[in-house]
């Protein structure tokens, strides 16, 4: 029996509501006991030889969960591999990540999904996947949802592209509803964004770049909510729509109203969207190019507001590695996306907790319990006794500067080199194994 003790830490577990000093006992990869300091001494069979982590002065929280990452394997391993991407995840405090299907080939088959999830890929943390909603993510024929769910799919998405056609999206929502999983939508009306490389507005005009209007996001969200409503009324099913990386006030307003109406909609926000605005594009910095793009200040504030009022269910990074030679090109030609696994916690802590007064418990809920709920995980995202021993230990008060050269990711494409972060990971534990522990 393997055993580990985490002693003297300040436990913050949104799942159980615990917010105080606790010791944690891990046995065989599960949380075996959570007690006030000293309370574990009475537990029978506790070995004096079991490994101990002194977490004094640190927060002990459920391992973070990111339901939106691009790990680039198979087919794009010059950008990232499952091993390097999950190593970056561990360094960022994440113990579960959900891989998007836009690999080469697209992850749209049981064989592809099994290959991706196989132990041979060397994942450092829990790896889950959302396969493609449509074959090849071409937006026409649904992939085999039932077979893929049996093989472990936690949802379906054509991420990178929207499911554009009304009838295809309706069919996807219906099929997913029958299986109890979400359809995760990249909300972009691509009929409005051809040739665009940043947010529409004054900055884009000044830079001479074609801009994506905020309506491109809102229109798809509004269309999808309309489909949810129709299906609920006509089919007596309750489909679950998850909206990825929401970046505009208008889309957030639509989601807020839909939640009030009782529709089953959830959504995520990316750290860069509540941290930066379109001004960060500066002189055509391709490391500030992603899709959806960085928006205007009013939209950034709307994302923060929606995180504070509960409209946003979870933080997801949209970790999107690209090789430097791919980003060191003309802005319009550069691929979309930035890496984000190692800066998410520090940005959320700085911006949401410190600058906007969000309670630590709420910040961590957005990164553990709530993303777990979105994809239906019962035994992760909490430190309740019996759960998987996925734990992050971090110093919530440490101010530090991120250095991209230290990144575990194979790619270094992000606009946060040298950025000020709050809260530094001291250890990440996945199913009872220490998967990240920098030398202090």
């Amino acid at each position, binding site marked *: 029996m393997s055993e580990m003790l985490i002693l003297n830490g300040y436990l913050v577990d949104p799942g159980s509501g615990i917010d105080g000093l606790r010791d944690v006992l891990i046995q065989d990869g599960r949380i075996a006991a959570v007690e006030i300091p000293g309370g574990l001494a009475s537990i029978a069979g506790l070995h004096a030889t079991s490994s101990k982590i002194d977490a004094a002065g640190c927060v002990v929280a459920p391992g973070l969960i990111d339901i939106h990452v691009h790990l680039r394997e198979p087919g794009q391993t010059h950008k990232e591999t499952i091993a390097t991407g999950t190593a970056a995840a561990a360094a960022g405090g994440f113990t579960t990540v959900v891989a998007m299907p836009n690999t080469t080939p697209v992850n749209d088959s049981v064989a592809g999904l099994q290959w991706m999830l196989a132990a041979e890929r060397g994942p450092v943390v829990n790896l889950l996947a959302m396969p493609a909603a449509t074959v090849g993510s071409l937006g026409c024929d649904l992939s085999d949802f039932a077979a893929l769910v049996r093989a472990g799919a936690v949802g379906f998405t054509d991420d990178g592209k929207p499911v554009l056609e009304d009838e295809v999206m309706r069919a996807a929502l219906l099929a997913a509803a029958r299986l109890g999983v979400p359809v995760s939508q990249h909300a972009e009306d691509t009929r409005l964004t051809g040739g665009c490389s940043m947010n529409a507005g004054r900055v884009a005009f*000044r830079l001479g770049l074609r801009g994506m209007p905020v309506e491109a996001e809102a229109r798809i969200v509004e269309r999808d909510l309309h489909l949810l409503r129709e299906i609920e009324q006509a089919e007596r099913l309750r489909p679950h729509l998850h909206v990825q990386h929401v970046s505009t006030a208008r889309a957030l307003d639509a989601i807020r109203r839909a939640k009030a109406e009782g529709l089953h909609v959830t959504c995520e926000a990316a750290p860069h969207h509540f941290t930066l605005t379109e001004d960060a594009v500066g002189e055509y910095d391709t490391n500030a190019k992603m899709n959806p793009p960085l928006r205007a200040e009013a939209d950034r504030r709307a994302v923060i507001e929606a995180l504070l009022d509960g409209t946003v269910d979870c933080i997801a990074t949209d970790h999107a590695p690209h090789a430097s030679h791919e980003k060191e090109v003309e802005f319009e030609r550069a691929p979309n996306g930035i890496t984000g696994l190692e800066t998410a916690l520090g940005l959320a802590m700085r911006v949401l907790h410190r600058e906007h007064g969000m309670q630590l418990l709420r910040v961590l809920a957005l990164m553990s319990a709530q993303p777990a709920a979105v994809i239906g995980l019962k035994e992760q995202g909490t430190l309740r006794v019996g759960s998987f021993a996925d734990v992050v230990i971090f110093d919530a008060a440490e101010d530090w500067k991120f250095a991209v050269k230290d990144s575990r990711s194979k790619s270094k494409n992000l606009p946060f080199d040298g950025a000020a972060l709050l809260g530094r990971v001291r250890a990440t534990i996945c199913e009872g194994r220490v998967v990240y522990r920098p030398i202090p």
Partner: protein
Amino acid sequence: MTERAKRAATREAGVGQLCGLPPEIVRNTSLVAAGSLLSVEHLSVADVAGILAMTARLERMDAAARARILLGRTIALLFYESSTRTRTSFELAAKSLGATTTLVSDKSSSIEKGESLKDTGLTLRALGAEAIVLRHPSSGSASLLARVTGLPVLNAGDGMHQHPSQALLDLRTILLRLGRDVRTVDDNTLHGVTLVITGDILHSRVARSNAMLLPRLGARVVLCGPPELLPESSLGMAEGIEIERDFDRALACANVVMMLRIQKERLAGFDLDLAEFIARYQLNQERMAASSPKLLVMHPGPIIRGLEITGAVADGPQSLIEEQVSQGLAVRRAVLARALGVIA
């Protein structure tokens, strides 16, 4: 600090604060060689005055002395888009200063085989180019080339973004024809001058360059065109810019009108009603007759006779179109010498 500089500094501080980074990193300009001419935004009024002064000195010099200024120096012209005026005038300007020039175009070079802009730039540098004049269809490409090569880069037009030497030659043309001193400028030089820029402003790097430079010298800039070619977001280019959709009303107050070609190659599927555009925005003799007889007519070229401007107006006595071309040669000599660190 000027208003504009203050605004820029505030904007940069804002971004820096958001992501906790210093402005030079946020603006990504720390690696650009001095002497580069990427955007009029990077030029202070004093820089503009310096370029105009050098233009005047080079013009007065006798040809033999001028031909020693860049003797033995190498300048590469890298053209990814077709060009008549800009390419020829940069080439003639460099040669008149004694420089060796080499022209690389996207056709008939390894660019056709997929060589990147970065590798093309590094190749030119390895072959001895000391500065690169770049024309490219992508906005921001000149900035990229400057960063990756570390060489002075002269932006001869990047996508819809900037064409700074065009704004400088337009400025010199205006000063000349208004009878003002062409050897210097300050922030009040163009006080009382109203410039109306008309047509396809959305796709025009010339419009952006002029609209972002001339108000800083005191000019009033009025933009004119239909919403499809002139969105409200254009007002963000500089303080004090105005939009007037009615061309006749705009002309009533204009000292200078700058016409722009509709850039069919950049319309991206957008279907413009040409007949209506001509009716509302063409500069023709009727409109000239209704305007001040002193109205100056400019056009960066190429002109499409019968579309944005009639042949009679383009060839008429108030047209500065050929003068602009001649001034291009003079101004480009100065920016080339400046790029190579030569004070003439």
